[in-house]
């Protein structure tokens, strides 16, 4: 796209993105919180935005992104929240690409970035294992060098949208004789490689997005190594930082708060004082989180990354999402027990699903208890020394 969107005023930019959404966003995708675009739907979204010049707002222009200021990226998110858009994981562009831009070879970037941009190839993230969840560095899936290949054996789990992905970026153990973080490498594999199988897991929100991925002598070329051998933890950590900025954002709390307000209006509780106090607390939690998120993200872009507060924001955002989803059930009365959308005017959502979608938020990307441990060590030093 020749035009520099950064030159538009915020109002012009917002208006342009809003109009584009209103004209182009498929009505059937306007199921906030609950729906996540997967597979062909996700590809379709990336292709639509690519064709219209809206793809990859955070990527630098040299890689074909929009190179937008943080302020304008937040405007895009905010408009999608307002328009009740579905969630999009976009692991390739959001999680994998920043790490590849930083640590990948020129050949790797040439091979993998353009198809992500065009929406031709989707990625999934192979980190967690059955015995390595919050304690990720204890992972045991191994890769052994054999000629020009690595041979991968092991078992990944909670791999989001693995069944729809074309590729996986995976953390593997390449050295068992060193400190656990020091023996990990960052490898890329095709999902149709011989020996690789995927088994979706049904979850409490009726989704099968989370998968197990089994590696049984899966061979990948040695050129699929990103960064140096045994230095994968460094690559992964750089990417966890981006993930934490994303997970600490106010999108899901804000969308559920909008639903809460609709529900309160629809049930005639706008004047109820007890309800107003509870709603006001959630509202201020949301507004302050948004204020913190934009100021911290702004500082991170200037290079002042504050790790303690990044961990904290993930805790704050996911905890708030759960508290709002709990409040939805309280307001809905008996309708909270429906396995279908509630019968309240102006609210078309299945609240049980909202409640269930909020459950894993405090578990994934580092359980909140683990985040608190990490932040405590940053603030107060390690325990027991």
């Amino acid at each position, binding site marked *: 796209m020749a035009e520099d969107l950064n030159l538009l005023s915020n109002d012009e930019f917002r208006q342009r993105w809003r109009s584009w959404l209103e004209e182009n966003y498929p009505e059937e995708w306007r199921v906030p919180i609950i729906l996540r675009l997967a597979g062909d739907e996700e590809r379709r979204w990336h292709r639509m935005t690519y064709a219209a010049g809206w793809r990859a707002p955070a990527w630098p222009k040299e890689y074909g992104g929009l190179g937008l200021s943080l302020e304008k990226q937040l405007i895009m998110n905010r408009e999608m929240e307002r328009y009740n858009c579905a969630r999009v994981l976009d692991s390739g562009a959001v999680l994998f690409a920043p790490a590849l831009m930083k640590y990948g070879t020129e050949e790797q970037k040439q091979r993998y970035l353009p198809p992500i941009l065009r929406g031709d190839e989707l990625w999934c993230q192979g980190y967690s294992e059955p015995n390595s969840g919050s304690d990720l560095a204890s992972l045991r899936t191994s890769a052994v060098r054999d000629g020009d290949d690595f041979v991968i054996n092991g078992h990944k789990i909670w791999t989001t949208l693995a069944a729809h992905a074309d590729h996986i970026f995976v953390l593997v153990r390449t050295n068992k004789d060193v400190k656990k973080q020091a023996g990990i490498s960052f490898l890329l594999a095709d999902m149709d490689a011989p020996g690789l199988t995927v088994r979706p897991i049904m979850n409490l929100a009726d989704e099968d997005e989370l998968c197990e991925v089994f590696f049984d002598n899966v061979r990948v070329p040695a050129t699929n190594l990103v960064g140096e051998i045994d230095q994968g933890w460094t690559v992964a950590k750089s990417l966890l930082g981006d993930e934490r900025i994303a997970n600490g954002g106010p999108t899901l709390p804000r969308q559920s708060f909008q639903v809460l*307000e609709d529900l309160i*209006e629809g049930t005639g509780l*706008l*004047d109820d004082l007890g309800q*107003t*106090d509870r*709603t*006001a*607390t959630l*509202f*201020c*939690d949301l*507004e*302050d*989180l948004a*204020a*913190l998120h934009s*100021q*911290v993200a*702004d*500082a*991170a872009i*200037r290079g*002042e990354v*504050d790790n*303690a*507060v990044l961990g*904290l924001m993930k*805790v*704050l955002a996911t905890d708030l999402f759960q508290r709002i989803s709990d409040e939805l059930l309280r307001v809905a009365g008996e309708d909270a027990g429906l396995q279908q959308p509630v019968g309240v005017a102006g609210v078309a959502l299945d609240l049980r699903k909202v409640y269930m979608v909020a459950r894993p938020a405090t578990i994934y990307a580092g359980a909140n*208890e683990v985040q*608190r*441990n990490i*932040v*405590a060590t940053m*603030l*107060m*030093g390690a*325990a*027991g020394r």
Partner: protein
Amino acid sequence: MGWRVDDELQQMLRDSARHYLGDNGGPAHFRKVRANECGFDAAAWRQMGELGWTGVLLPEAAGGSELGLDAALTLAEEFGRAISPEPFVAAAVIAATVLAASEATAASALSRDLACGARSVTLAWQEQRGSIGIPRFATHLSAGKLNGTKRHVPAWHPGTGLLVAAVDGAETIVAVVDPATAGVAARPARLTDGTIGAELEFAGVELDGDAVILRGAAADAALELALGRGTVAISAQLEGLASALWQMTVAYMQQRSQFGSRLSDFQALRHRMVDLFGEIELAGASWRRAASALTAGQDARMAIHAAKARCSQVAQDVGRWSIQYHGAFGFTDEADVGLYVHSGLRWSTWLGNPAAHRREALACHRRERGRNG
């Protein structure tokens, strides 16, 4: 500082404030002043005048340093860290904003006194307990006489400069009133931050012809700006207090051992301190957002309500757990923690308490979204 960034001026002021308040603020200063007659240290106030702090929002023409709101808020944070009882928010932010909006002779005389720290000045606006913002005034001026009652007047002492907000017919006015004038009755009460608040009754108080310094729309705008700035400033002060108290509590937990472990080793306590730290981070972001909206001339009302709610709540929450984690020692007057909790009680309940501000913030949001009950 982490994600919080000072500009050069703010960094300079912060250094100078930490240096000065290190010697003339903090628990020892608080103990020295807490029972005195005027509720703060008049000598320290003069020195703060020399440092340019009392005139931070006053124009240079009136002897002020005119450093602006961001500078004032940095100072407010440091006053909070040092639990300074000197009336920075009441006088140097709220009263000064009203004075700076007036060109009347009576206003510039008070501005000069305030800017050099010779006097403090207070604004009497509130008339009902628990009211937030500028009320519809019952206090009125008619035929040159002022009648009415003002409550919760901050930073009171008999030598204070006094501004009174009232109505004259349908118009809002602000008048300079000499507290020694016949018909002014003051009922002072000591507050938990050591300062003195007063209920002031005006019974047929005769005002000079030039006592009214602001009138009509100019008075309304100045009062609204004064309370908006004051509310953000007390929020910054509360964040400073909460942050200092949190650090003091962690330091205590790191040296106090029980069952063979430092208190700071116990996971339940560590997680609580992390959650409180998170609340302090929200507080810091909340008042900074309100301040930038105010400085940019945007509608800052929702953000100001959210900021005062959050900063007040965090001061109360950190206060509660800091006493708990200091154990029985935390309940003694000898422990400094109680001084912070006492100051926090006053600051968090003045200018609207957390619950009231949360309701107001939600009401702003609902008005904007066209949702009415």
